[in-house]
């Protein structure tokens, strides 16, 4: 058995534990794995280049930066805070719960690019969630603000992951179908998509409940953070 090829896995784990620059860690791990797998250096560099170029589409989201940056310059986040602070029913948990629902439903319809961290979370969702907490608790300690932002990012991820597999033409469903076909099993995508529904419901209940609990815990966290600052 070629145990050596696991060297890349080891490098990645050690690199992350030692908090080295992930870009460098991943590059070194890739080169080491390629060499351990019997490729020569030229082939390794070529494989790097080929896959990097083929995966350029994942970077397309950065195309929104000029628009988002421009709108931020003219007060998009400030306007969002102002609007949310006027809605008295809005709490951090409820704002994020609504976004979770919208994200799951649109992802289930195949509209995965309607959300995202660059387009939605930074300019709109995180400021909304922060503003709702500010209305309730006044000016927020930095640690609490950061926690709310982390929850906003997490909510986008959970909504996307456990919504998209209900859509029959999403990558993972096509991958499963292709894999099963290679192994002599033919299954219609709709059957695979249907079995994603129980998990989608569970994800909404579990993460949604945690978001509502977050509302209760925010007051205590604001208190604690303020006591520590004093």
């Amino acid at each position: 058995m070629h145990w050596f090829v696991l060297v890349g896995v080891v490098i990645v784990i050690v690199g992350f534990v030692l908090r080295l620059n992930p870009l460098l860690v991943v590059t070194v791990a890739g080169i080491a794995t390629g060499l351990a797998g019997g490729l020569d250096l030229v082939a390794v560099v070529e494989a790097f280049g080929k896959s990097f170029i083929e995966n350029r589409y994942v970077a397309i989201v950065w195309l929104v930066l000029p628009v988002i940056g421009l709108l931020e310059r003219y007060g998009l986040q400030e306007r969002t805070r102002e609007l949310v602070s006027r809605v008295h029913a809005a709490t951090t948990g409820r704002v994020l719960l609504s976004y979770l629902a919208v994200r799951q439903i649109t992802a289930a319809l195949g509209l995965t690019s309607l959300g995202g961290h660059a387009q939605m979370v930074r300019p709109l969702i995180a400021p909304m969630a922060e503003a709702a907490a500010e209305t309730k608790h006044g000016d927020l300690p930095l640690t609490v603000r950061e926690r709310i932002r982390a929850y906003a990012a997490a909510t986008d991820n959970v909504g996307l992951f456990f919504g998209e597999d209900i859509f029959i033409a999403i990558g993972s469903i096509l991958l499963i179908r292709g894999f099963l076909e290679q192994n002599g099993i033919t299954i219609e995508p709709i059957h695979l998509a249907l079995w994603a529904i129980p998990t989608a419901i569970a994800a909404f209940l579990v993460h949604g409940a945690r978001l509502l609990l977050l509302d209760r815990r925010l007051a205590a966290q604001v208190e604690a953070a303020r006591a520590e600052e004093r």
Partner: protein
Amino acid sequence: MITLEFIYVLMGLLLAGITLVSARDRTNRKRWKNTAFWGMYAVTFLFGSYLPHLASGAMVIAMAAVAGFGGLGKGDPDTTTQAERVESAGRLRNRLYIPALLIPGLALLGTLTLKKATLRGTPLVDPKQVTVISLGIATLVALAAAVALLRPRAATPVREARRLMDTVGWAAVLPQMLAALGALFALAGVGKVVSEVTTRWIPLTTPFAAVVVYALGMALFTMLMGNAFAAFPVMAAGIGLPLIVGRFGGDPAVVSAIGMLAGFCGTLMTPMAANFNIVPVALLELPDEKSVIRVQVPTALILLAVNTLLIYFLAFRR
């Protein structure tokens, strides 16, 4: 026909603009590192489809070296103050949302309509890439709308994009780098070794044990690879099909669909899933690299347990 290449050129032009702004920024002590990094990234977008893979690969490794040794810097970006933003938010009010909402709105419209649009018999956009191309076109229209509304100086959109790109930094490139790592793992046969290890060392004599090892294996291997797509063929070929389906008679649709979702629970818990867990940390300017992962772990663990039980109860329901 509009293809992905069109979007790549747009992206390359944006990065070239960011490179220029970086090069002229005297407030950034590491400005030449930033210039080199974004400049090489721009080249991969503008010419990547024509360069030999060896040249692209060498550039990618050089980018990692620039970011890894000494790191990228941040200048003092030319933007508005908090007070100016509050003032302009009060003046522009909800009109500020028009460009922001044009992006998802047009991306949606494009996804729904452009697939079948033709111009003199040839498709208007590459039908296989409709979503990504729609998103690209939507951002262009939104930018035009924002410029018409706000009337900034010509270079301002690129300067503002540079400000945001600098907050994201090297993390912007990490998802692509991880895809390259995945390709090398596949070439070297890492998956096979891992599945040999799992099946050799763990006794799988009951359906429940097999389901548990399969679901946990999906999550763990996804955490290692950063991607459930890479874990699925390994675990499904190692345990899912031969044991759960073959020996114990489980339903392959349940085993594979929910197994993939067990993998997604792993995605929530690993820094290797960079575009979901590391990029937002940079984008939201959080000081702790693990803050997004930390709030996701409880949800992920509960859902992993739920998925394991769902496979067990649904796969053998007959």
